């Protein structure tokens, strides 16, 4: 097989890009956004304020950003992968410092009118940086232990910073997403087993360093009846919300668990419980299949991409999205501890929405530019 069997265009024009756009994936965004709108409308007791309309505005603006990212040349994305990641790390440090100064947990960066939660964007930036790193590595090099130092640092540094905020959920997600990218890049399985053993050994130390409320959450997860009116209360109320939804649900605005405020955080982390109460098993499974479709389209994008950067990027972002959904729904359904991970496109929250759309925009970008040649190192002949 000759390397240049096909003529590969170095630059695409806008028309070509728009034609190459994965419209199925694009179309899923407004559909999920509409679900989010209805959930937030219901969470406010049947009112567009205070959440639903802002959600819609953010979605509209975010979609434009997503399309802009999708049409950006992938080589530009490649070049800026590290700077974007570094910027995210700086923002995380700024949040930690601000949190120390105000003597409390802080996940926000106050930028006047906009409050930014850098940890959400960091997940996307991490995948970007790891994809960039492994793109430049030959398969033999991946096997070298020394080649793993840099990616482990890329995962570990933000995870530690986020843990200090303290945000256990995001830290776990960073490690999980980063680990999956390492796996996809070809890191040996026994190394993962070794890492797993190391984590198991470190568990007692981690436990000792958790905040009281974090321990409480883990214990409550293990046994929700432990304190039915304290920390277990939320989980129990969430169960009741899900369960009472039944097969067909109680109708929009008909869920008493949500409408009478038994359900905590129903506009953010427990939004799925509201949806499941009011639209039942059918609605919940439908929503899950929408997410599954989105995830598998992203996987398909990864598989048909012709450069390694795009493959890892799209697959990593697909995993990221799947993890969001799995952790959030798992938490609401009592399969996982309450860790504060939002449901993409549905939970109320600007930065999470922006980060999700940014990730999706990158997947679309990979798909549009799947045949664009990317050199392994700057100056190399196209791979």
């Amino acid at each position, binding site marked *: 097989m000759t390397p240049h069997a096909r003529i590969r265009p170095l630059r695409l024009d806008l028309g070509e890009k728009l034609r190459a756009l994965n419209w199925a994936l694009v179309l899923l965004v407004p559909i999920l956004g509409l679900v989010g709108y209805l959930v937030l409308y219901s969470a406010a007791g049947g009112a567009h304020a205070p959440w639903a309309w802002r959600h819609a505005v953010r979605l509209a603006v975010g979609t434009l950003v997503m399309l802009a990212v999708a049409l950006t040349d992938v080589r530009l994305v490649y070049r800026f992968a590290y700077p974007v990641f570094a910027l995210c790390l700086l923002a995380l440090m700024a949040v930690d410092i601000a949190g120390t100064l105000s003597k409390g947990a802080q996940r926000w960066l106050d930028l006047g009118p906009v409050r930014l939660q850098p940890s959400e964007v960091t997940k996307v930036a991490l995948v970007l940086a790891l994809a960039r790193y492994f793109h430049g590595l030959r398969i033999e090099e991946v096997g070298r232990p020394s080649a793993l130092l840099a990616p482990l640092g890329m995962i570990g540094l933000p995870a530690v910073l986020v843990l200090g905020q303290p945000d256990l959920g995001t830290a776990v997600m960073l490690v999980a997403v980063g680990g999956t990218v390492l796996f996809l890049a070809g890191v040996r399985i026994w190394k993962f087993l070794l890492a797993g053993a190391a984590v198991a050994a470190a568990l007692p130390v981690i436990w000792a360093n958790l905040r009281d409320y974090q321990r409480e959450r883990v214990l409550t997860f293990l046994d929700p009846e432990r304190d039915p009116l304290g920390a277990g209360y939320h989980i129990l109320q969430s169960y009741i919300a899900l369960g009472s939804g039944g097969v067909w649900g109680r109708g929009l605005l008909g869920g008493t668990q949500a409408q*009478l405020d038994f359900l905590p955080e129903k506009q953010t982390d427990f939004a799925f419980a509201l949806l499941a109460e009011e639209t039942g098993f059918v609605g919940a499974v439908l929503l899950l299949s929408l997410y*599954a479709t989105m995830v*598998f389209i992203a996987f398909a994008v990864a*598989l048909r991409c012709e450069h390694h950067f795009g493959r890892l990027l799209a697959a990593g972002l697909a995993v990221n999205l799947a993890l969001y959904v799995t952790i959030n729904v798992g938490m609401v359904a009592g399969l996982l501890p309450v860790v504060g991970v939002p449901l993409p496109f549905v939970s109320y929250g600007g930065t999470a929405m922006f980060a999700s759309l940014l990730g999706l925009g990158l997947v679309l970008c990979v798909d549009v530019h799947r045949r664009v040649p990317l050199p392994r190192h700057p100056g190399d002949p196209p791979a």
Partner: protein
Amino acid sequence: MRPDLDRAKLFTRRAVVVGAAQLAAFGALVVRLWQLQVRDGARYAELARDNRVAIRFLAPPRGRIFDRRGRPLAVNVPTYRVRLVRERAPDLDTTLARLARILPLPPRRLAEVRRQALARRPFVPVTIRDDLSWEELARIAVHLPELPGLLLESALLRDYPHGPVLAHILGYVGPVAKEDLRRDPDPLLRLPEFRIGKTGLERTYDRRLRGRAGRVEVEVNAVGREIRAISRDEGEAGEDLEISLDLELQRFCFDRLARERAAAAVVLDAVTGAVLASASIPGYDPRPFTNGIDARTWRQLVGNPLHPLVDKCIQGQYPPGSTFKMVTAIAALEAGLVSPGYEVFCPGYLDLGNTRFHCWKRGGHGRIALVQALAQSCDVYFYDLARRVGIDALAATARRFGIGERFGVDLPGERSGLMPTRAWKRRRFGRPWQKGETLIAGIGQGFVLATPLQLAVMTARLCNGGRAVRPWFVRDRFPEAADPTGRSWPSLELPRAGLEAVLRGMYETVNGRLGTARASRLDLPGIAMAGKTGTSQVRRITRKERLTGAYREEKPWEERDHALFVCYAPFEAPRYVVAVVVEHGGSGARTAAPIARDIMRRTLEIDPAETGVLTAALARGKDRG
């Protein structure tokens, strides 16, 4: 290009594994949802329908505050309020319109209630009006069936039956502010009706007065209406406080001072440090603060030039004037520079370099020793002592008497006054200390500032034999306060003979033939009081005024001198201390001394420390008669 092909193949293989894992995870979620929603759905639906446990926090009754004889100073009174639950009113406007017909409500308030009701979360009641009278309560209760959505509730409201008399001491409670929430995780603070101590003792002892939140678990039916309480934890009522004040004496002080525009008086137990009365004029009414004061009243209080919100006893800082002369005397005696018999010739002035420092008495006092120098308040005598002692030694002694020190009294906002030193002046102004400033400080003028409480403590530490008492309102404020003999307070190690001469000087001030406060002798048989006048300049007398004598004429109020008086009684067995400051009162002897005398007489009559001194004196008088 083999390497890239290799890694693409490996990627594909592993991507299939990851994809399968994700599919499995989604499958697990679906199975879990099926368990909860389909298999167990009926059970949970029943739970949702019947067994809805909601948790409501209960505010415990706030601890009450009593005076030293158990008379209530701050209490909780039941109050009735009418509230609105939007969800239970089929027609909000009709309900409100009907209510307005039986309860006078301004249209602005109605609009506000309507707005709040629509903005709040479902089933959270909106208060329409607090503090309903019995008649209003009855009227609403009768019409309640026609007023769906309305709720009558009773609650405890903080009340201060003595109003302005105790406002500065007790402070007041008010709605919880955002900063309070950040500082304090107590769930009580999140109750919308909860009130937190904002100033005074209410603030200092807020945690003790507050109590512990109670909790009810209530069953709520499908529309959110409470059916019954499942369990009820009443929490703990706040702790009651007994404070050192004597209500009767406090009221007397307040009323006696009220003839002046701005004044303060402190009565202290010289042995234990208990504050028996502490009045500051003008006062304010603490009651409107409980529900959040309106902006206009607030602006009026803050903008008032007489500062009614300021507790002048601990926050008013005045040059102590001649009341400071005892400290100058002790400093000189302690340093061994002079003896009580030390004499100075006073020609009416003292020259230092080419500056002339005047005595208040134009012609001078002639040859004079310590006791008479105090009694007649000769300035030159103390200029001389201060010059010998030097400012830093003088400041060290003054600080031991409490001037320039915070005592840690249990009221927030205590000011420290000011006792200058060389180092202080260099820090503050960047200029070296001037010798003349030492002279001025020696008569309690210039930079020296003291609060009325500090003057009272200074006097107490003199007359109780040199024990460093500290003032308190609640007995467990200081461990030493628990000792009724007062011997737990550390000794200041004052020179015995010198202290006796100083106290003799204070006796002569009030009882001597030439004493400046002779007109304010105590007219009780067999009990004598000792004291010291002070008149402190607000504005320096210009040379021209001194020459023309214009400074003796009537000046505008703000430019008149502050009038001060400190005293203690009985002279033979000192127990009570009174310090009075009348802002711009003109003269300590003419204005402050008579007030202090009246307060002292009343203190001896009430005898809060139960010394029995007056009854004994009266009995002695009868025996002799």
